[in-house]
């Protein structure tokens, strides 16, 4: 068996991977060291003080009680160091850089579907450029899945009916595993794929081939197909709110609550329009629940996103409102209503 067939340490192929490996190495050294010392001490004591005809009775001796304090306080301090390091690393993994490229992912039993902003769609394969931060916005069509890139050391559960985000920046070109890490039914172990990390030039070349138009432009077609444009006009005459410049802003609702217009809000407004009605508008929009597939939904969301900002690739991480939700923050449907406002008047 060749040594290359028998790896003991995974490849490092993202900007966070060395950080994760450094913490892993630290943990191995500290925990392994303490464990080995403990085993050694036990072994020596068990041999030295083994029961012999001369050593039938234990000596009436107790080690000093100060030891007790030592092995409460010292491990605790080490643990706190581990906690701080682990949390610092976690925030690095969670906080999406401002200039990330958007890619959308859908998990369904049992495949991964990826859509690029320019419109390319692929199944169980993901092409990404090296050296650029990639933000993946993802949802599941059925059960909980988990998108896992071992070489990037990142993983996030993919939930039904809720957009979550993860990000990575590849540092190495090549072909690496994608796994589903949350058990999802019969072919869970077949819900795997490959991430192809390419030079940015090759990636551009790859993007140019075979797209049906950008995701946003496909969304625009759907926007007309579903006749959204009859109400959501570009001036204030329509029955629905203007969507130009909407994305990332703070919207005031009819019950005076506010919500940030992010992916989850746009998604909810398409599927369940009455849930959060914008102040000053009648709740007349029909629901599109069950009529728009997850894929088309992503296109529509991507189109509304593109209407909102000139720099489509830029993610507003911090908005003026302190309640704003950043891209990496886990959101749940309905979380936009601040809980403390639960006594507010209803429409």
């Amino acid at each position, binding site marked *: 068996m060749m040594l290359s067939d028998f790896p003991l340490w995974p490849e490092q192929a993202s900007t966070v991977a060395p950080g994760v490996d450094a913490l892993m190495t630290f943990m191995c050294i500290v925990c392994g060291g303490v464990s080995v010392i403990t085993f050694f001490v036990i072994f020596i004591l068990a041999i030295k003080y083994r029961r012999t005809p001369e050593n039938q009775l234990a000596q009436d001796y107790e080690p000093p009680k100060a030891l007790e304090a030592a092995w409460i306080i010292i491990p605790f301090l080490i643990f706190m160091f581990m906690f701080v390091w682990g949390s610092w690393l976690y925030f690095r993994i969670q906080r999406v850089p401002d200039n990330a490229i958007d890619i959308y992912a859908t998990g369904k039993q049992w495949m991964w579907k990826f859509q690029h902003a320019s419109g390319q769609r692929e199944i169980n394969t993901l092409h990404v450029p090296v050296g650029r931060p990639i933000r993946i916005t993802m949802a599941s069509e*059925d059960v909980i899945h988990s998108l896992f890139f071992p070489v990037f050391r990142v993983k996030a559960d993919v939930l039904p009916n809720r957009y979550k985000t993860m990000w990575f920046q590849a540092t190495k070109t090549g072909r690496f595993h994608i796994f589903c890490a949350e058990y999802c039914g019969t072919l869970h172990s077949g819900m795997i794929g490959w991430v192809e990390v390419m030079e940015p030039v090759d990636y551009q070349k790859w993007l140019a081939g075979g797209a049906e138009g950008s995701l946003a432009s496909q969304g625009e077609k759907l926007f007309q197909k579903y006749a959204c444009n009859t109400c959501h006009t570009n001036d204030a005459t329509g029955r629905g709110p203007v969507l130009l410049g909407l994305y990332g802003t703070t919207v005031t609702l009819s019950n005076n609550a506010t919500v940030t217009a992010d992916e989850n809000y746009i998604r909810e407004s398409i599927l369940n329009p009455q849930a959060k009605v914008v102040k000053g508008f009648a709740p007349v929009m029909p629901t599109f629940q069950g009529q728009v597939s997850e894929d088309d939904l992503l296109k529509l969301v991507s189109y509304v996103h593109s209407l909102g900002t000139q720099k489509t690739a830029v993610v507003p991480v911090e908005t003026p409102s302190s309640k704003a939700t950043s891209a990496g923050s*886990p959101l749940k449907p309905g979380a936009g209503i601040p809980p403390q406002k639960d006594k507010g008047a209803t429409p």
Partner: protein
Amino acid sequence: MSSLTLHDVRFVEPETTRNYITHDYGALSWLLTKDHKRIAILYLISITALFILGGFFAVVMRIELLTPEGDLLTSDTYNKFFTLHGIVMIFFFLIPSIPAVLGNFLLPLMLGAKDLAFPKINLLSWYLYIIAAVMGLYIIITGGVDTGWTFYTPFSTQYSNTHVFGVTFAAFIVGFSSILTGLNFLVTIHRMRAPGLTWFRLPLFVWAMYATSIVQLLATPVLAITLVMLMFERVVHVGIFDPALGGDPLLFQHMFWFYSHPAVYIMILPAMGVASEVVAAFTRKKIFGYTFVAYSSLAIAFLGFLVWAHHMFVAGISVYSAMIFSFLSYFVAVPSAIKVFNWTATLYRASVALMTPMLYILGFIGLFTIGGVTGLFLAAIGLDVHVTDTYFVVAHFHYVMVGGAVMAYMAGLHYWWPKITGRMYPEWWARLAALLVFAGFNLTFFPQFVLGYLGMPRRYHAYAPEFQVLNVMSTAGASVLAVGYALPLCYLLWSLWYGRPAGPNPWGAVGLEWATTSPPPMENFHETPVVTWDAYDYPAMMKAMGETQNV
């Protein structure tokens, strides 16, 4: 060894001709018994049967994983096997193992009581266990279940077309068995102690059982109600945990782990109690820092409730609550560390007899330490993002549950076997089995840490070819482990008929359970003992024996 007995030193039961086994005859005298010792035997037989069943699933899974392709079982069968392995081992073996067998048998003996506080409820909890087990077996025969033992929604409520309802109902029932056992123990420890047996004279096993019972009492009902909601959702198709209907699947995970994380301590706390008993008996010393070890059990029982969401770091909880749970998770590691260091310190200037129970416990300390420190890896959130849901987690919890709880259970079974049956097991075979279990266990599970860090996800029926070498090692280890577990089954049965009669106290141990005959009489003690000495009072005992017997 036989020269060291407690006779003439302290209160000792006189020999009698009738004991709890020979007191009555016939199947009904066992099935309708209210005697805690007989109920312990009923539990011993039933959990052994289910351990064999759970082990069967494990063995078939390990054989499947010899090759990267899923060639032995279909995907569905494999998924059912790991689900059933988890459910059987956790709900039907590990949780009742030490409490319901050793705890049931020993608690009244250690307390100098005639029985548990509620003997009828004790029998009822065994029947609940059996009803649930029979339901589980029926489900296995008629098609099984494939949700994983965690029953995550919406897979379990909307997508799985296996017997989810039946198996969650069985888990619900066995939960009540567990609650009733815990309740019984708590009341017994509070109200049935012999005169003079104050809290700080209690054996550490009793402290451990006390802490365990608190967890059983206060965590299990939350699992019960969560399963009720799950069953309701599955049958009526409502959306408590279904995002399509406004529910949140993460709420299920919160409520499930509110029980299932503390459940880990239901399994490991009794194991720590056994470790303290065995270490004291085979070093002939009082456990170093008795009060710290006693209080650390209670600390684990409480802190264990504050850390559940560390199972959910990548599931979509808020980053700030993830930090809180990570922080609290490190707290629970402190009392566990205290125990390991205190057992180690007890060996200093002791008289260490490396007999079978002690071999198992030394193995327990080592494996539990590895299981514990790898928990620190998982509590570091940034690292957990990579290793969660991989084989690293599988290895970690097997080190705690098999390397910890099962090793200690084996130790306890050997240590108290002479008391339970009145017979000695063959020492040579037992030592061989202990070494086989230790070696086989490490070969099985240590490679899985590496596999996990390489990125092999858990619950995979087929896997990438580069993971094969480590998987083959793991399967090889599992076969050694299987032999290691099969041996005690044979020689312990053999010893029932051919074992050397043990006498009341073959180890020269202190503790009330060694002061009565082996096997104990139906009433445990003909006269309620009056306790005037501390737990593990070996120095005083040795002094007394030195005077009377000139050892």
